[in-house]
């Protein structure tokens, strides 16, 4: 065999390979972007074929003159279902933009623990509603979903792909490491991101990008609020803490411990476990002797914790993180194991004290077939927060939207009762304590943060 010739062929093959990359990379707009018109039947961005989607987007951008949107003048932030009121940031109702507002939704669509619909459904619903009410700045709002997977590099690739499509604003990123990895990119792009991650590490004071805003509760706030509730309302003194072995779990443990010790209580045991743990016998047995258990984990491990606590006869109240709603809704724990089960969540729309939130939840459930959790509610609210900010800013310029978001003060959401941006760009502050069990998902307290 002639090896020199062989290598030439390989050379050619590589050349072709990289030429393919080059052409592939060079071609623009391969992601599906959908304009959801008010009358359109539910189509998600995901399933639309690329070519059709591109045409739709282009046509809208090129042919729809601002004046054709007849309802522009009358647009307010009021939505039919949400009963929202613009408060403090209103005043952009006669805003006229030169092109449609494009929202990039960055969420995990693939991967073993991806549940994309809890973000995609409310996104679609909110955009439809806004467009039915006249859109923003004379155009229908458009959105595109980008798959972030679960690793920082996949998240960054998704963001770069999104930025290539020149979005007006960014939304999503449920994974802390992805928000952190995106810092430099966001600072360069100068486009605001409302993100769905909890960890304190993304705080601006901790070096996070000033272009990020958190609509979810800050992890330490939520953990502290739940510890406070357990002490004040259930009279707990001795705490057992369980947490997943990540920054998310560790931060929550530290915050809860500080509150417990300040209130004269003590942590008698703290135990971490892997995110995909399949047995918690050791951890659960360590909780024996505590008045309550605080567990910061994910749906499967919360289910495991509840079942194993019940099986080992540890009959004490337990307070779990955001995922507790998923554990409850999917009945991952036996009904007998969920008799003293509390969840600390950003909000619980179907059990909210406000009628507007409950109405929204039932409309949502009718449309999509499941009772929405906090994820869906704050996704909806984020779309409206952007609408408010853009109208207040009077333009679709990233800098102006960021400034407007920094002074948001809004009471019209379906998740939090009041949104207000603090120095770390946290929008949400109140923790809802939900009792889960006996067929109910009842909000028992709302702790002001």
């Amino acid at each position, binding site marked *: 065999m002639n090896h020199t010739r062989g290598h030439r062929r390989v050379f050619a093959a590589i050349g072709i390979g990289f030429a393919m990359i080059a052409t592939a990379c060079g071609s623009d707009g391969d992601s599906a972007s959908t304009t959801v018109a008010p009358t359109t039947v539910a189509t998600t961005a995901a399933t639309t074929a690329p070519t059709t989607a591109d045409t739709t987007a282009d046509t809208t951008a090129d042919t729809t003159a601002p004046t054709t949107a007849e309802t522009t003048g009358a647009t307010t932030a009021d939505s039919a279902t949400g009963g929202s009121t613009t408060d403090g940031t209103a005043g952009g109702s006669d805003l006229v933009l030169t092109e449609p507002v494009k929202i990039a939704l960055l969420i995990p669509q693939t991967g*073993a*623990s*991806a549940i994309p619909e809890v973000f995609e459904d409310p996104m679609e619903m909110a955009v439809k509603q806004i467009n039915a009410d006249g859109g923003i700045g004379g155009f229908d709002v458009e959105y595109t979903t980008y798959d972030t997977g679960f690793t920082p590099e996949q998240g960054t690739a998704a963001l770069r792909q999104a930025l290539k499509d020149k979005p007006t604003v960014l939304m999503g990123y449920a994974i802390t490491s992805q928000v952190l990895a995106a810092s430099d990119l966001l600072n360069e792009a100068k486009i605001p991101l409302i993100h769905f991650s909890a960890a304190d590490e993304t705080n601006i004071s901790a070096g996070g990008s000033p272009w990020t805003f958190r609509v979810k509760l800050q992890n330490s706030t939520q953990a502290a609020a739940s510890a406070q509730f357990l002490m004040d309302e259930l009279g707990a003194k001795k705490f057992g803490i369980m947490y997943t072995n990540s920054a998310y779990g560790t931060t929550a443990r530290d915050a809860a411990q500080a509150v417990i010790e300040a209130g004269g209580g003590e942590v008698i045991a703290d135990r*971490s476990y892997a995110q995909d743990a399949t047995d918690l016998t050791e951890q659960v047995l360590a909780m024996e002797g505590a008045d309550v258990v605080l567990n910061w984990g994910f749906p499967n491990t919360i289910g495991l914790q509840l079942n194993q606590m019940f099986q*080992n006869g540890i009959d004490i109240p337990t307070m779990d993180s955001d995922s507790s709603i998923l554990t409850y809704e*999917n009945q991952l724990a*036996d009904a007998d194991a969920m008799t003293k089960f509390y969840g600390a969540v950003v909000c619980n729309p179907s059990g909210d004290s406000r009628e507007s939130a409950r109405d929204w939840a039932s409309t949502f459930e009718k449309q999509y077939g499941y009772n929405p959790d906090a994820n869906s509610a704050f996704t909806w609210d984020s779309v409206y927060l952007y609408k408010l900010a853009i109208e207040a800013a009077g333009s679709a310029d990233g800098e102006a939207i960021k400034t407007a978001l920094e002074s948001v003060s809004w009471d019209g959401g379906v998740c939090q009762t009041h949104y207000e941006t603090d120095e770390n760009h946290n929008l949400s502050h109140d923790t809802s304590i939900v009792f889960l069990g006996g067929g109910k998902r009842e909000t028992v307290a709302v702790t002001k943060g």
Partner: protein
Amino acid sequence: MSRFVALLSAGISTGSIYALVALGFVTIYKATGVINFAQGDLATLGSYLAFWAVSSLELATGVAYALAIGLMFLVGVGLERITTAPLRGRSVHVVVIATLGAGMAIRAGLGIWQSSRPKRLPSPLGIRTVGLFGARIPYQSILIVAVTAMVVVALILLFERTQFGRQLRALATDTEAARLQGVMVGRMSMLSFGIAGALAGLAGVLFAPVVSVNLNLGFVAMLNGFAAAILGGFGRIGGVVVGALMIGVFEQMAAGYIAPQLREVYPFALMILVIAVRPQGLFGSEIRARH
């Protein structure tokens, strides 16, 4: 004492699951010389099929389990037809990668079919427990151990007393000689994948009520199953079962009495140490490299 018993029983029960997964590898390995990297995903698929039979077909749990295990036998055969049969005579590595790819496809397909939301597969025994030395042992653990014990006995009989078993042994000893003796290599390969599929399905339906039906269900069990198979020497059924139980119990005990946060390290650390000291596994015979 009660803590020790509780940890021990949890170890034996997770060890039994590892054993079921590991026995699947070993069966396929004996017949084909390939390690099936989709074994974990087959267990996941088994749990989803059972969930589907319970929730959509509304079958009783026992019937649903049986249906799932039966279907998994067919899935195993199908997997062999797709990934192994066309690559017969190719390098083992290529076949291994093909099974890996098939596993990825199974996981991704399940996510689309049933969504990635975790689900609960009911156990016929619920979550009740029985007291033993002050510890509470879940009935499900007892079920897992009892079923595994029965399966192990059945497999030993199958391997030692039947035509299938004799042919399998012949294949494992010398593929060429076995072929010349009239062993149908293709049929044996299919059957072994079928059995491994059913074993994985069984592991899936037994494990799912404990940990919920989710797309990662089989993966962790597979990694530990590997460790178990290696510890046991990859050949003898008894060795593999003992290896699996050792992994399960050691994991619990080290987590309980050394450092709980390093729990996931223990099975692999134990395995690497065993390989360092006894490269053929604890119960494997001397490895004879052959070409």
